[in-house]
């Protein structure tokens, strides 16, 4: 979790750039996680695997097939989206009313995916070239990869906002997440909405995986850290809340970067976890969350 981070005494602009970039990536991951939970009531512990799959899909297409970074990005978007949808239809749909089974099966799936990737590509992190070059912004150097990561994630988040708030499908999605029975009564097909959400969540996480892989190397276990962080983010923002997740991502991203820069880089993973426990104990419904009624 620390490849993006330059250890200690970076100047304020660099720190700010890092915060904004990493937060945007975390938001991409957390949004999918929270949508799946909010709409389907399903805790998808295999969400981290999408990150890994995205990164390796990009690695295969851009490096091994030599088609370049953009093709890799597209491949990650499509492959993880499709896989996630197929996973929902093939496995989760049958058991989505049994939360315990869902948690166990998604957890086991995540492990299986990690093992497959480790077996095929080894445990050494892979270099994932996206775009070359660097910029100088406000006196600090920013790599192009960082910039692309930020711009694209911001665009995707904005697109998701627009989709949810201004399209019929999006409104149906919101309705389902608020009350499944109510949505069913007005003729919204929950299963179709669920499929949509799983595909979107997979695609977003896949893209985030490419950027995470490009900035800190792609390895078989790269999905674990972001998955745990998305718990924190989602719980902090309120499970099922989109703006809560974005805000949560920025809080967690800021905390992480500040911890690394000004306290101790070995504490990176600890701060968000402590935040998570504190939030769960003090305000389990999060900043913008609703009381968990049906789980």
């Amino acid at each position: 979790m620390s490849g993006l981070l330059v250890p200690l005494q970076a100047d304020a602009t660099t720190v700010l750039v890092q915060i904004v970039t990493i937060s945007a990536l975390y938001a991409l991951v957390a949004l999918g996680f929270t949508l799946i939970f909010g709409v389907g009531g399903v805790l998808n512990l295999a969400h981290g695997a999408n990150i890994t799959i995205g990164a390796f899909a990009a690695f295969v297409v851009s490096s091994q097939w030599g088609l370049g970074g953009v093709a890799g990005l597209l491949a990650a978007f499509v492959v993880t989206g499709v896989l996630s949808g197929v996973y929902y239809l093939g496995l989760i749909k049958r058991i989505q009313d049994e939360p315990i089974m869902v948690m166990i099966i998604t957890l086991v799936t995540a492990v299986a995916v990690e093992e497959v990737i480790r077996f095929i590509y080894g445990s050494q992190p892979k270099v994932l070239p996206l775009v070359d070059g660097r910029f100088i912004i406000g006196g600090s150097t920013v790599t192009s990869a960082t910039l692309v990561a930020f711009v694209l994630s911001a665009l995707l988040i904005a697109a998701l906002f627009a989709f949810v708030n201004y399209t019929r499908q999006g409104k149906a999605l919101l309705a389902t997440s608020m009350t499944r029975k109510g949505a069913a009564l007005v003729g919204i097909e929950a299963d179709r909405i669920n499929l949509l959400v799983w595909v979107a969540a997979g695609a977003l996480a896949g893209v985030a995986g490419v950027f995470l892989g490009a900035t800190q190397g792609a390895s078989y276990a790269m999905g674990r850290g972001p998955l745990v962080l998305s718990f924190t983010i989602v719980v902090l923002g309120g499970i099922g809340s989109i703006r809560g997740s974005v805000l949560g991502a920025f809080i967690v991203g800021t905390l992480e970067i500040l911890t690394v820069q000004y306290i101790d880089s070995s504490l990176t993973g600890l701060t968000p976890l402590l935040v998570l426990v504190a939030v769960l104990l003090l305000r389990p419904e999060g900043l913008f969350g609703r009381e968990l009624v049906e789980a």
Partner: protein
Amino acid sequence: MSEDTASERVADDQSGRSLPSIPGRYVAGVVGLLVLAAMPVLADMEIGLGVPGVFVFTVDQLFLLDLTAALYFGMFAMSWDTVSGYTGQISFGHGLFFAVGGYTSALLNLGFGIDPLLSIPVGIVLAAVAGILIGVPALRLRGPYLSLVTLVAPLILLQLFIFRSDVFGGELGLRDPEPFLGFGVSQASTVFYIALALFVLIMALLLLVTRSDAGRVFTAIREDEDAVASVGLNPAKFKIFAFVLSAAVGGLAGAMYVHTPIGGPTPSELFSTTVNVEVIIAAVLGGMGTIVGAAIGGIFVGLVPILLDEVGVVIPVLGVPVGEIDFLLFAVITLFLLFVLPGGILRSVLNAGSRVRGWRRGDEVATDGGRPERVVTRVARRWYDGLREEGGDDDE
């Protein structure tokens, strides 16, 4: 327990989760334990089992030690089952208790020279305290929220261990502490018998607890917590009890494990993600909420990788030795079994057993006069039904 009226009412509920009482399963259980107990005798004779060239497997001292480790893992799986299988409070970080027990005992032994006889109980007590710490959030949090806390707890511990590597040895762990009662590698059968005795003891204890009135309340909490509260029982009390009991047993298993010649106090052995997942796989595979199933699953998960390594079979198409991808195989087998036998191995075997007996007696049960559905047919039908539901109405 203070609420006696309620417990009596539950007491004559025969169905619940308990299995149909077949004497056959007790016979099978005793035979299983006897086979385990006979292992050291086999080792003295250096018996090889299997087909030469394809599957050769020798019972020897090393295998006894592996079996010992598997027994401790079985105990650990039973402790997971006590809290997660019965009360439904799914714990994703059960390794925390395993680790607290193991590390406490190892640190006391290595740092202060305290004998394992004394350091292990301290490890158990500290693990129980950790059980209270995890149990308290369980009073306020439900379902997925609680699972998140349990998932995060060992991660926090791991971060602390890495941060204070000087004390805890970081990711590499500590060196091995003294063996329990001084039994080392050369006395493998003694080490094994100690483990087997503890295993039987813990299984008896957990079976007693889960079959008692408290155990019935555990199950009731899993099914409907509000209903439990509505009859005047305090679910919080029972949940904490389940967590503390489970943590203490897990701590015992962890502490004993680090003092065997085969186990050591390292994060990868005690509380890595793998351990946390493996214990769930073990319990679910064996049969959640059965204790015995979890024990069988634990031994299975503990032994199968070792057997796979010994077998040395190369998977045909991929050309890979089985031993290299054992954990992946596990995950795939688990996914498959969860789908085919949702109740776990134990329940399926018991059900199959009672069906066979019914057959022999001639009182076939299928209500439509046909034969009972075969497993393959059932799975195929479930998939087909699942596909057909696509266009159907919402069931809510």
